[in-house]
C-alpha cells in the first residue's frame, strides 16, 4: 500500500513526461504491452476469486477478459491486480491498472472528483446485513446499539452512518481493510452484524465456519450499482470499455451465446446481429478495433446471461437475476442499439 502510494506521488510529480505518457492512448499502450492490466478485488467468490491454479474467476474477472478479447483478440491476455477497497482508486489514478472492475459503486463524487468515468452498471446491488441466527434479529431496525463489522474506504461505511443517524440509532463500527479480515472477525464473534453489498454477503457467508448459522436480513439500505471504471482523459478507451459492456448485454438480448455465435455469424439474417458481428464492414472501426471485436467477446467469454449464470446464478451462490435481468424480463439491463 505504502509503496503504491509513493509510486503515485512520484508518478504524479515527475512532471510533463508522465503527464504526456498518461494522456497517450491506453489502447496503444495495451496493444504494445500485449496484455490488459485489470484491477479486481482480492477474493470475493462470484466477482473475482483466484481459482487455485493461478487463474481467476468471477463476474468482474470475466468483464476484464471480455475487454481483453475485444482489444487483443484473446481473453486470456489479462494480468489481474488484486486490490483492497482502500487501494483501488489510487491504483487506477496512478495508471497501475488500465481498468478497474472491482465491485465498485458508481457515485457522484467518484465519477466527478476522482478523475474517473464509470462505464455503466455490471451488477445492481444494495447494502445488506448478515447476523448470526442465534441473535434472533429479523430486521435492520432492531440493530440499535449493535457492533457492526465492515470494510474501510467503502460506500458501506457511509451508508451505515447515514442510515443509523437518520433513525436516531446507535452502533459501534469495526472497520477492517480486507474482506477476509472482516469475515474472520465476524466469525470470531467480534460483531453482531456484518454489512456490505448483499451479493458479497452471500459470497462471504460461504467462508464462515458454519454458514447455516447466519441469516441475511431482508432489507437493503442503499443502492449499489457496481460497475467498471476508467481514468478520465482517454475518450476512446472509455468508449471501448463501455461498448464491451453493451456487447455483453446486447448479445443476450439478441440470443447470441458463446456456443452459437459462430453459426449465427454465418447464418443469421438479423440485420443487427450482422452489423454487430461485422458480417459486412467493421463495427469496431469507430473504436479503433478490428472487425472481430464483438465476435471475440461473445465467443470467448459469453453474453451477460452466461456470465451471470456461471458466476452468480448457480450454486453455491444462487443469486436471482432480479434487477439484473434484461429489461425485456423486467430487469434494468439494457444496451443501446448497435447501429
Amino acid at each position: 500500500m505504502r509503496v503504491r502510494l509513493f509510486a503515485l506521488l512520484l508518478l504524479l510529480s515527475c512532471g510533463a513526461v508522465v503527464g504526456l505518457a498518461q494522456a497517450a492512448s491506453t489502447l496503444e499502450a495495451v496493444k504494445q504491452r500485449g496484455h490488459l492490466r485489470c484491477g479486481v478485488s482480492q477474493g470475493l467468490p462470484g466477482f473475482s476469486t483466484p481459482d487455485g491454479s493461478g487463474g481467476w474467476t468471477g463476474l468482474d474477472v470475466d468483464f476484464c477478459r471480455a475487454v481483453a478479447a475485444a482489444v487483443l483478440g484473446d481473453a486470456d491476455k489479462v494480468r489481474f491486480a488484486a486490490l483492497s477497497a482502500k487501494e483501488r482508486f489510487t491504483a487506477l489514478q496512478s495508471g497501475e491498472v488500465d481498468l478497474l472492475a472491482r465491485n465498485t459503486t458508481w457515485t457522484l463524487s467518484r465519477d466527478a472528483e476522482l478523475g474517473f468515468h464509470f462505464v455503466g452498471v455490471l451488477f445492481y446491488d444494495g447494502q445488506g446485513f448478515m447476523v448470526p441466527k442465534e441473535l434472533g434479529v429479523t430486521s435492520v431496525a432492531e440493530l440499535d446499539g449493535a457492533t457492526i463489522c465492515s470494510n474501510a474506504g467503502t460506500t458501506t461505511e457511509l451508508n451505515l452512518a447515514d442510515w443509523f443517524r437518520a433513525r436516531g440509532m446507535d452502533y459501534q463500527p469495526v472497520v477492517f481493510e480486507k474482506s477476509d479480515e472482516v469475515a474472520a472477525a465476524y466469525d470470531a464473534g467480534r460483531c453482531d452484524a456484518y454489512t456490505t453489498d448483499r451479493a458479497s454477503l452471500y459470497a462471504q457467508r460461504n467462508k464462515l465456519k458454519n454458514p447455516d448459522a447466519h441469516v441475511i436480513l431482508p432489507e437493503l439500505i442503499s443502492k449499489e450499482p457496481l460497475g467498471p471504471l476508467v481514468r478520465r482523459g482517454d475518450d476512446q478507451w472509455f468508449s471501448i470499455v463501455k461498448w464491451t459492456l453493451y456487447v455483453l448485454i446486447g448479445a443476450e438480448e439478441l440470443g447470441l451465446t458463446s456456443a452459437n455465435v459462430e453459426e449465427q455469424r454465418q447464418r443469421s439474417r438479423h440485420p443487427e446481429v450482422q452489423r454487430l458481428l461485422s458480417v459486412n464492414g467493421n463495427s469496431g472501426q469507430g473504436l479503433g478495433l478490428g472487425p472481430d471485436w464483438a465476435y471475440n467477446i461473445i465467443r470467448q467469454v459469453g453474453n451477460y446471461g452466461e456470465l451471470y449464470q456461471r458466476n452468480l446464478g448457480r450454486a453455491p451462490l444462487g443469486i436471482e437475476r432480479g434487477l439484473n435481468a434484461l429489461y425485456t424480463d423486467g430487469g434494468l439491463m439494457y444496451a443501446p442499439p448497435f447501429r
Partner: protein
Amino acid sequence: MLQALLLAAVLGAIVWMFGNALDNLARQGIASGFGFWNERAGFAIATSLIEYSETSTYGRAFLVGLLNTLLVSALGVVFATVLGFLIGIARLSPNWLIRQWAAAYIELVRNVPLLLQIFFWYFAVLRPLPQPRHSIELLGLAYLNNRGLYLPKPILEPGFGWLSAALLLGLVGCLLWLRRARREAGSDRGLRYWLIAGLLLLAPAAAVSLAVGLPLGWELPEFRRFNFRGGLVLSPEFVALLTALSTYTAAFIAEIVRAGIQSVSQGQREAAYSLGLSPGQTLRHVVLPQAMRVIVPPLTNQYLNLTKNSSLAAAIAYPDLVSVFAGTVLNQTGQAVEVIGVTMAVYLTISLVIAALMNWYNRRVALVER
C-alpha cells in the same frame, strides 16, 4: 554553508514536486487542495479520545486518528522499555534457566513478522472471551467479553479543578519535605518521616473534598440489547495492538540492553562487589548508569520503529492515523497527494520529536569528562 545549500535544494525539489503533482492532478480531473478538511466526514470511528461523530469534519477525523496513534505508541514505548530491560537483564542472569528462557523469547519474537504477531494476539484475545451475554463479571463493576473490557469511567464534576490544584499542592509539599529530610537526616527514614510525607500529600485534597464534596462521579457500564454501553472500554483491537507492539519491540530492546551491560567492563562489577554492594545494587548504581550511554542511541531507533509499526493497526481495525486518515479519508475524498503528504509530515514530526527528546536525555546520561 554546504548543508544550508543542500537543505535549500531538497526543499526546492519538494516544492517543485508538489507543484507538478497539482498540475497533473488538475489535468486528470482529480480534485486537489485542502477544501475537504472542513467537510463533513460522514463515517463513524470506533474509539476516539475526543468528541467525534458522523457529522464531524475530515479534519476532526484526522485528529482522532492522530491521538489514537500517539496513545498506542506512547504506551507501547513504556511497556516495551520495561519489558525489554527486564528481559535484557534476564538474558545475562547467572541462572541457566532464566538465561535460556530470555534467549528463546528474543529469538522467537524477533523472527516472526510483526503483522503475524498482531493477528495472533488479536485472535488470541478474541477467541477465548465470551459473547457479551455471557460476560465475565468482575466485582459487579467491570465486565469482560469479546467486545472488550468495560470499566467504570470517572466523570469529572464541577469543582474538580480545585481538587487537582489541592493534589498538586500536596505533591509539591511532600516533595519539598522529602528533599529536606534527606539532606538533614541522611539515614533516618523512620515511621514519623513517612507519616509526615503522607499527610502533606493528602491533607490539601482532603480539605477540599470535605469543603465541596468529592467532585468525581462514576459512569458504570450498563447492559443493553446487544452489549454494554457507557463506561470506559478497552477494545480487543487496542489490547492486541499494544501487546504485539510492546512484546515485539521489547525483544530488540532486550538485545540492546544486553549489549549495553556487556560493554561495562567486568572490573567495575568486581570492584563494586568488593565494596560490599549486592548484585542488585551493583546493577542499579554501577552498571546501568554506564550502560545507558551505549543503550540510549539505539533505543531511540526502537522507539521510532514502534511508532511507525503502529500503522499496522489498520489490519485489525484499530482506528489509528493510517487507518482513519490515510485509509478511509483518503478513499472517501480520493485526494491521495494531500492526505499522504500530511501523513508523512506527521510521522516525520513525531520521529523528530522523539529523536530530540532522546538526544536531550542522552546528553544527560553521557559521561561527563573531567
